[in-house]
């Protein structure tokens, strides 16, 4: 045993509540310090809670103001006109605000984008999680990340300056800026969302299910299609819904690529026609709409509709994400 060492630091014996001399610092708080600590903790919690409530405040403000500005339009029965008519003539003397063609535009463009993006995205997610080796995956993931990071203006630029002339010259379309162009560019923009969430969901399925299927003699395709994807379906659906949300809410790319013609083509599946989406209408016409006029109110009403749609889609995706996180055994009772 080593001889005793004197401490090099001398501890001043502080008188505490206990009569002990060994513990040189008091183990009980003085009432003053106790109160100070309590108050400090309270104030700190209040400040933190206040800061955290900024997000609540922001959401409430956004909903409040959009509704507030759109309300006059709805109060005059604008909803019926907006959803029922496709005559959008906001600047006429007898202004008409039938936004059906815009709903069609947003719808057809999103539909077209999803038709391409969902299968492609699922296949890519499967590839990333199961097919690729670790090394190649390190190169593939940045590709997805870069695709996600490119600003929408750049996509729109590409659509209007590169794709549109190509469509016109090579494929002889009447106009290069049409629903096809917009749908294509939206597909590329929605892909990273779908891929990343689906890949998370597919990876989260874990090795057990896969090993079970392989042990029974399934090929990889069968395992994925019959076992893994169904097991991950909640997450995948959430990813798709989020992709739809991204496509519906996209402004710049469709503004530049869709041709901005407020009409519903006679053949609704004709993607070669120019269309107009809700988002692009707001972006284009807000500059011209006089403050406080009915045109501006109508545009805010369109914004309100957008907000409502994306909010519902968000809730749906939340539901599916929550379902995906629930442990599997809780589902079967």
């Amino acid at each position, binding site marked *: *045993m080593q001889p005793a060492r004197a401490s090099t630091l001398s501890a001043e014996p502080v008188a505490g509540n206990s009569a*002990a001399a*060994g513990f040189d610092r008091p*183990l009980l708080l003085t009432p003053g310090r106790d109160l100070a600590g309590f108050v400090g903790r309270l104030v700190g919690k209040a400040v933190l809670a206040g800061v955290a409530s900024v997000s609540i405040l922001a959401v409430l403000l956004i909903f409040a103001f959009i509704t507030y500005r759109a309300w006059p339009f709805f109060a005059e029965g604008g909803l019926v006109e907006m959803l029922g008519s496709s005559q959008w003539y906001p600047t006429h003397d007898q202004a008409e605000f039938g936004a059906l063609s815009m709903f069609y535009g947003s719808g057809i463009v999103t539909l077209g984008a999803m038709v391409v993006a969902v299968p492609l995205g699922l296949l890519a997610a499967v590839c990333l999680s199961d097919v690729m080796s670790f090394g190649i995956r390190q190169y593939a993931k940045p590709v997805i990340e870069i695709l996600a990071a490119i600003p929408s203006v750049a996509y729109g630029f590409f659509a209007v300056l590169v794709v549109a002339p190509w469509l016109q010259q090579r494929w002889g379309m009447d106009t290069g800026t049409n629903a096809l162009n917009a749908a294509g560019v939206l597909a590329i923009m929605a892909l990273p969302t779908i891929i990343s969430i689906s890949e998370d969901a597919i990876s989260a399925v874990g090795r057990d299910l896969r090993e079970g299927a392989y042990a029974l003699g399934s090929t990889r395709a069968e395992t994925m299609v019959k076992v893994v994807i169904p097991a991950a379906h909640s997450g995948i659906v959430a990813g798709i819904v989020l992709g739809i949300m991204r496509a519906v809410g996209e402004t710049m790319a469709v503004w530049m690529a869709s041709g901005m013609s407020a009409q519903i083509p006679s053949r609704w599946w004709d993607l070669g026609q120019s269309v107009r989406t809700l988002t692009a209408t707001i972006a284009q016409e807000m500059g011209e709409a006089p403050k406080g006029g009915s045109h501006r109110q109508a545009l805010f009403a369109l914004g309100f509709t957008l907000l409502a749609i994306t909010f519902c889609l968000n809730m749906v995706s939340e539901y599916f994400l929550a379902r995906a996180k629930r442990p599997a055994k809780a589902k079967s009772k």
Partner: protein
Amino acid sequence: MPKDDSKQDEVNEMKVMAQPQSKEVGEDQIAAKVHPDKQAGVYLPDERTCSAGSGIIASKDFSLYYGDQAGVKDITLEVYPCSVTAIIGPSGCGKSTFLRSINRMNDLVPSARAEGTLLVNGVDVYDKRVNLVNLRQQVGMVFQKPNPFPKSIYDNVAYGPRLQGIRKRSNLNEIVHKCLTDAALWEEVRDDLRKSALALSGGQQQRLCIARALATRPKVLLMDEPCSALDPIATGRIEELIRTLKSEYTIVIVTHNMQQAARVSDMTAFFCLGELIEYNLTKELFTNPGKKQTEDYITGRFG
């Protein structure tokens, strides 16, 4: 286990112990506490090296509940100054729970609830007015898996002193030097104290954690299975270190390894299923266990 009729004596004893009037702890007091009906040779803590008024821990019917489940129930024991007390027992028997109650680390679990008394140096640590900062600085802890901060070696050891407001470079240097020496790590790291602590080996990291705990000038060191994540050589060095530190600090060590308890400790407590089964001098517990459960555990009939 003290008999029921001596409960009142016990409480009186504890109150006496809480205010030590003498520098050393009398041998008859220990003998009376531990062996109410035994006359065996008594081991005395080394009076020469035990500094005045070393902190001690005493618990009386202490229980800790996680929600409705009891972590430990009705623990009554006391830890003597300048000694090494080992707590052994099978997995999940509440050893760590009890240890972590001493310095209120169980507060991290939201559903933790304490009943009974747990005195450290005469102060009930579950009193609402307890100064947690001072408590935790004077009752240091070393964890199972070495957990140095992702900072430099110097900053790890200097963390505690900096909390106390010591800013001057020369003071901090002194403290770091002393603690690293006390933890038997100085020779190995003296060349580069700026190196990241995470670059050290497991055993070195654990010694660094011990140095970090020493830097706050504790009186008690709580060690929660400090060697379970280390290889035998590192384990041996830590055990040697414990024997060295015993002269200045009171050490409570939780261990899975009975042989380690036998090697290192002066007193041993055997926990099982959240209850204290037996608490005795190590030599006695291992050669002559009082309870059948203890004997079964020691001889390996269950584990």
